[in-house]
């Protein structure tokens, strides 16, 4: 019996047990608080609830041109969604001409789609239906206050045109101002084919500034200002796929999957201890460490946990067990041909290493391809699979080995039965 190593071993077990406790229950020491892992991990929409929409650009553009279009569209959608006040919206370009918009906590898809897809096509049109200036010529658009006839301060949207817009606007106002008929002196401000303001032009406006007044309150004025600033989408976007997940249904799915994962791990532990005795117990500690590594790195990397992700995680636990099984079977074989526990462990590890590496690397290749080429749920599956395999190799090759050797120095390694012989 080696006192120092015994203490070390107990310490390791205690730390692992404590970390698991923290991960499951969370802990609060003074002002420091570590939340439950279950709550600190970002959940995907399928678990947290929300709306996601996949939109496709209706365009024939290709290559760089398409890429530029998509970037613009994404930026505009981003601006609009931010106006919605959704927490952490996720907007990403998928493939070549798709945009995936994920909004947590919203349950009316139509509202979301309306806002995302709103064209906000702004036009200044004269009475002969000539388009004078469009939203594309607007350099800035902001809320200002203007005194009305009654002396009340009313919010308006103040616009400033770019050079081209200024020139066109000056030419148009000059032309219109010369007219005598009041009908013809009007320049209509049209948003999405709806006239929102029809001011009468008295003088030529050469400074490129215009004001849209109407019956605005501050809210509607700033919304309009944002929409105009964001501009129209450069291409028409068609709704391809929509998904709404009620928040409670997602959480129920999450809870049940976590429960399933817990039971699966417990069954694996029992199996390992029965099959491999002491090394089996060691592998339980290693597997707990493995699970902690995976959860912690998911938190750290901000990987969003989705339902397929959970499945990938549980599958990878199965594969983490595999590495241990491979090694222990090898150790048993060495013991059977009469080697001592110490040499059996060394040989067992060495001889199992090539198969652990080769088999895991081939699976890793599949995981990387899935992550790289997959979309949506398939990508999530790939991420957890990659994380799981890397963590499983680290724990099996280093941690299991270290703990086993520690155990041998504690028990003296005389009793080969304990090691499964």
């Amino acid at each position, binding site marked *: 019996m080696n006192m120092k190593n015994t203490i070390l071993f107990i310490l390791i077990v205690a730390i692992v047990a404590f970390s698991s406790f923290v991960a499951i229950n969370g802990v609060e020491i003074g002002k420091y608080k570590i939340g439950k892992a279950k709550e600190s991990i970002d959940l995907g929409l399928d678990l947290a609830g929300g709306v996601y929409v996949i939109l496709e650009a209706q365009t024939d553009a290709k290559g760089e041109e398409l890429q530029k279009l998509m970037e613009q569209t994404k930026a505009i959608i981003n601006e609009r969604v931010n106006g919605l006040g959704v927490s952490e919206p996720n907007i990403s370009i998928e493939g070549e001409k798709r945009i995936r918009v994920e909004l947590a906590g919203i349950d009316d898809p139509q509202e979301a789609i309306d806002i995302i897809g709103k064209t906000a096509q702004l036009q200044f049109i004269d009475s002969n239906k000539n388009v004078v200036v469009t939203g594309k010529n607007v350099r800035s658009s902001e809320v200002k206050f203007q005194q009305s006839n009654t002396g009340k301060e009313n919010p308006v949207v103040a616009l400033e045109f770019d050079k081209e817009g200024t020139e066109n606007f000056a030419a148009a106002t000059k032309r219109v101002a010369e007219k005598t008929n009041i009908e013809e002196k009007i320049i209509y401000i049209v948003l999405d084919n709806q006239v929102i303001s029809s001011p009468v032009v008295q003088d030529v406006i050469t400074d490129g500034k215009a004001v849209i007044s109407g019956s605005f309150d501050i809210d509607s004025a700033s919304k309009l200002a944002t929409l105009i600033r964001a501009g129209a989408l450069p291409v028409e976007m068609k709704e391809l796929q929509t998904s709404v997940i009620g928040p409670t249904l997602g959480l129920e799915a999450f809870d049940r*999957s976590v429960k399933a994962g817990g039971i699966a791990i417990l069954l694996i532990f029992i199996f390992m201890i029965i099959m491999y005795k002491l090394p089996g117990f060691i592998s339980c500690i290693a597997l707990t460490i493995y699970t902690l590594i995976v959860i912690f790195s998911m938190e750290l990397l901000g990987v969003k946990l989705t339902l397929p992700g959970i499945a990938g995680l*549980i599958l990878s636990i199965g594969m983490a067990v595999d590495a241990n099984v491979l090694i222990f079977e090898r150790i048993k074989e060495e013991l059977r041909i009469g080697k001592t526990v110490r040499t059996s462990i060394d040989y067992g590890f060495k001889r199992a290493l090539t198969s652990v590496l080769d088999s895991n690397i081939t699976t890793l290749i599949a995981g990387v391809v899935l992550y790289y080429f997959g979309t949506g749920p398939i990508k999530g599956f790939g991420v957890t699979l990659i994380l799981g395999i890397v963590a499983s190799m680290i724990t099996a090759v280093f941690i299991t080995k270290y703990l086993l050797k520690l155990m041998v120095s504690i028990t003296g390694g005389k009793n080969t039965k304990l090691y499964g012989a």
Partner: protein
Amino acid sequence: MNIIKNKKIFLGISLAIIIVGMVMLLTKGFNYGIDFTGGTLIQIKIGKTITVDEAKEIVDEYDKNASILHAGAEKDEIIIKSTLDLSNDDITNIIDKFVEKYNIENKNYQSQKFGPFMGKEIRSKALLSALIATVAMLIYISWRFEVKFGIAAIVALVHDVLITLSVYAIFRIPVNSAFIAAILTILGYSINDTIVIFDRIRENLKLNPKESIDNIINNSIKQSLRRTINTSLTTLVSITVLYILGVEDVRVLAFPLIIGIISGTYSSLFIASPLWYDLKNRESTKTAI
């Protein structure tokens, strides 16, 4: 257990399943899920079991041909599948009608809408990913072992995918995008199993260069049998628990994985090595002539 001697029997069993599956596939085709055919899916938690007819009273107004399924542990959820592209307003209306009729307090639901082209694209993308993954794995195995091992491993892999597809075709299980994620996982898992046995063959070849290939293969499989069974058992246990306790979305992912793991274990033991044996033998008869 002499695997090489009985290799025709093992191959026969697999071929029988695959042939039945392919015949079913050619005559009836897959039962594609909504996300492949395009359409609308609504899932609502009612809180009690209602009959299909009761649900139809509400749904018929929007789509008479919609199929209605029960879900949830207590069968207290319903899933409405329509091949129509229902508008978002229609979906909201349907949900609200259920909420109103059954006094559901917490609106507990999800809905999904898929354009008809998405499925085709997911399929071709998955096929492409699978092909790339296979080629990458073939290169890796050929580099670490030899090309013949690589070919044998890939054939075993194709076998597992075909078996899983066959089971889906025979039992008319809906094929959706989760199924594709599963097939891709089987790809990774099955190869893992095969490599472990090949690793043992490679090692035994080095240790006993004079031994006949039949014996080497039989011994290698015998030596890795316990590991193969134990590993497959633990993985099967975790996936099965997931299948039993999981929600609908998880179950559709877990089921093909269960089939794939069983098939993967079978093919690593009984298909991959005999195949490598045949490839190896062809080479030695060639050099003998």
